[in-house]
Structures are given as C-alpha cells and as structure tokens.
C-alpha cells in the first residue's frame, strides 16, 4: 500500500507555542488511521493543515501525490471532512444542509438520498437540524463528508458526545468504510479503546510530536516487553525500583523495561516485594504491550525520557 497522505517535518507555531513539531506521517491507502493523543497534543492542528485550513510554518504535505500548499482545490475534491464543530445551519433541514454542499460540489441531487440512506437518516431528512440529537448530527456530518465519493475522509473526534450506542454504531461504520466505499479514513480521537476497535494503523501524538506510527498489529507485536506498576506514588516507587530495574516514571505509573529472556513472574514478585517492603502503595502490576493504551503509555513514556 502506498501513502495516500504523506507529511514531512510539519511544524506549526501559534505565537510562542509550538503546536505541531516536526510531524512526519504516512497514511496508507484504504487504511483506517487512528490519530490519537491527549487534548492539546496537536491532532486538530495537524488535521487542519492537511485540509489546507492552516498553513504549516515548515514542512510539506502531499495528498494523492498533490501538494496541499499549491493544489488545494484539486485535493479538496478528493477529501471529505467532519471537523469537531460540524457547522450545520440549524434553521435548515438535514437534506437542505446536505444540498448546500452538494450544489457547491456540482453533484446530482440523487446523492443526497443515497447518503442519507447510508447513514440511516432518511427518516429525519426533512426535520430541522436544530432538532437533531448529537449522534444524528455526527451521522449527517459523515454523510456530508462523503459527498462526491472522496478518496480520503478526515474525521476529527467523531465520537465526541455520543452515547454508548452511538459510539458502537460509529465504530462499526468506520471499520467497514474502506471495504464498502473504497475510502481511506483518518480519524482523530482521544478515546484509545475506540480507535483500537476500528483502526488498522495508528499515529500517536504527544506534545505536538508524532511519537509512534505504524500498522496497529505490527506495533503491538514489536512492542518491547514492559511491566507497568500503577501507583499513586509513582515517583517514589520509581526511585525504589531504579536500583534493580530500568524504569520510567509516569504521572501515576512506573514502566519497568524487561531485558530479553527475563522471567516475568520473577520480576513481578521482585517488584511487589520491594514496594511492600518500602510501604509504597500500588494498585496493579501488569505486563503491557497488548493494547493500544499500553502502546500509548509506552510511547509517551519513551518520548518523555528522550526529551529529558
């Protein structure tokens, strides 16, 4: 698979704040690329640069081989976007809202029915958007983003504010989208569990930097074995364990980096003995590397360590 979206050394500064710091990412064609990271990590700024809404201070973006800075209009025809604020006109109905974008894209009127069917909103087509639930608005946003059969769908926090049913629906929808509509999906979220269920690839943002990227399964396989100790006294626990293990202290956890061939049971026993001996509280000791959350924690801890 080639990269449909490629960025090189993207940098964006707002006054004195470096919001995006040297992001080089590749989104393979027909992937569901989960772009994860905490609020304020630079995800939305990066997405806005991809959409040509913000200009990078440094770096280059290509989508489908075209340069975003030079060929925005040609790229925009191939990209559909659902941004955090959906931007619907509450005085208009769902169908009328779609119709505005359809006219600007020069598409036939039949597209509206097709897309309302796709997102299961046909029954509410003639209701004013002011009366839509958040989940309905998100689905309408996806329908609007899919107008004109784009090659790339950019979704910024599509599960924000959705109830559990809505989240499950969205998850299934995103997972099936590449096969159903031959589209590449770039979805940003701070909900790691949700991304893990639908993404084939992930990019992890932290402090404006892309600290990990790749196929989710490959990242999970390649993750170094670590043991994570969850403790309210992480700093003191790290100090206690550092004489024996290679440790990284997080805010409320300590990551212990295992050596090749090291026996997990023996390490766990040693950790618990030392922490109990020093009367340091901990709530869990577990091996990590199996979930996206673990990958995320390790990636962030590594990034913090490298920065230090």
């Amino acid at each position: 698979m080639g990269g449909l979206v490629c960025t090189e050394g993207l940098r964006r500064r707002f006054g004195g704040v470096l919001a995006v710091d040297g992001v080089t990412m590749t989104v393979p064609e027909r992937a569901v690329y989960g772009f994860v990271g905490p609020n304020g990590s630079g995800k939305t700024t990066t997405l806005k640069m991809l959409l040509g809404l913000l200009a990078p201070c440094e770096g280059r973006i290509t989508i489908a081989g075209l340069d975003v800075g030079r060929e925005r209009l040609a790229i925009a025809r191939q990209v559909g976007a659902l941004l955090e604020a959906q931007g619907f006109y509450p005085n208009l109905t769902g169908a009328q809202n779609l119709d505005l974008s359809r006219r600007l894209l020069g598409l036939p009127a039949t597209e509206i029915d097709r897309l309302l069917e796709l997102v299961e909103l046909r029954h509410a087509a003639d209701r004013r958007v002011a009366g839509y639930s958040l989940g309905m608005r998100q689905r309408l946003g996806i329908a609007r983003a899919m107008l004109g059969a784009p090659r790339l769908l950019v979704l910024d926090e599509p599960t924000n504010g959705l109830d559990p049913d809505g989240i499950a629906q969205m998850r299934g929808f995103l997972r099936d989208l590449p096969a159903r509509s031959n589209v590449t999906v770039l979805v940003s979220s701070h909900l790691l569990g949700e991304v893990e269920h639908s993404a084939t690839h992930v990019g992890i943002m932290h402090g404006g930097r892309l600290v990990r990227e790749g196929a989710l399964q490959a990242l999970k396989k390649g993750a170094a074995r670590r043991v994570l100790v969850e403790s309210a006294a992480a700093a003191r626990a790290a100090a206690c364990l550092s004489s024996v293990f290679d440790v990284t202290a997080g805010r409320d956890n300590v990551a212990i980096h295992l050596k090749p061939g090291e026996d997990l049971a023996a390490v766990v026993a040693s950790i618990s003995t030392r922490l109990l001996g020093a009367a340091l509280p901990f709530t869990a000791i577990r091996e990590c590397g199996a979930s996206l959350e673990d990958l995320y924690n390790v990636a962030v801890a590594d990034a913090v360590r490298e920065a230090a």
Partner: protein
Amino acid sequence: MMVPHLRTVVAVEVRKLRRSLAALLAVAAPAIIAVFMFFNVVKMRNAVPWSVWMNNMAGLWGAFMLPLSITALTALMAQMEHAPKSWDHLRALPVPRWMLYAAKLICTAVLVGAMTVILLALTLIAIEAAAWIKPAIRPGGTLRLALVATILLKMYGAALLMTAIQLWLAIRFTSFVPAISVGIAGAFFAIVSNAAWQGVFLPWQMPINMLASVAWRGEVALMLGMGGGAFASVAVVAHLSRREVL
C-alpha cells in the same frame, strides 16, 4: 478541474436564508417604518401632500433605520457561519475562498436592496390603508414615485461602503459585539454630526445626505459611498480570503 461559478455560491448563500433571522429582519425593519407612517397618517386631521410623507419615510430610513438595519443584518449574516462554526467546513470545500466571502457580500447587498423595495411598497400600502380608513386625510398633490425611488436607490448606493465595513467587522470578529458597537456608534455620530460638513465623510451618514438641501453633500456622499463601497468590497474579500480562521 471543476470550480463552482460565483452564481452557484451566491445561490447557496441565498438558500441559507430560509427561516433565518436575517430574512426576518429584511422584512421587519422596513415594516417598522411603514407601521410608523400608518399611525402618523391616520392621526392627522387634514390631508398632507405625498411629498411630505415620502420625505418623512426617506428621512427615517436614511438617518436611523438603514444604518441600524445594516449593522444588524451584517451581524446576522456573519453569525450564520460563526454560530455553528461552519467556516472550517466551507473553507475546506473545493471552492475558491474569495468566492465564499464575495457571495456573502453580494447576498447582503441584495438583501439591503430588497429592504429598500419592501420599504417603498409597504409604506405606500400603509398610507393607502390609512387613507382608506380615514378618507379625509388622503394625501394631496402628486405622488412622484420615480423621484422617491431614485432617492431611495441613491441611499442604497451611498450605503454600500457602510455595508462593506460592517460585514468585514462582523466576519472578522467571531463575537458580534465589535460590529454592533461600531454600527451603533456610527449611526449615533452620523446623527449628531448632521450639521457639520465633515459628517459627509462618515459612511453611516452617507445615505441621509441624499436628502441634503446642499447639492454637493449628496454628490460627494454618493460618490464616496459607491466608489468607496466598491473598493472596500474588493479589499474585504481579499483580506478575509487570505486570513486563517482559527
């Protein structure tokens, strides 16, 4: 690659007006003048010439209602995009950005023009209705409709600079407060500086100068309003389309 025609973008802008406050204002503002005229006519004991009523209508419109309506209308047109945060969506579409702002400006200018037509129509209906209720006060003299329409048309032309400035403020700032504040202040100073010759250079006073007894005031105000409006429109569209929306 297909790029939409400006006509399409303007048509989309017009469609956004359905059930909107901006559309309601476009009817309500001239209707207020018409209602006011109705009660003024109906309270009379003797007939008053058409020219007096038409002069009253144009004076009220040019001095108060037009500047305040443009202030409110431009704020509502901009809030239509600011409130649901739709600028990002619009700017991500394969539409040249200048077209988005030019369409907004054209649509606003067309609405102001429509308000002028509605004003004249509703005022005539209001005066006729008052005369029907009380035949003794039916206006005397000749109704010089072409002259009245010309004066209103000139007021519209003279208001173009004010329209461009107010729309720029309303779009530039997400909050409606700066645009509304400037509009109210502009209308206020336009009235208090009515006697001063410098007042003619104030965009908010330009429309009422179409009724000035001194010819040069009307000519200068019309020239500045239309010429400045055309120049300001180009500048506004250029500035907004180059700007990043955060």
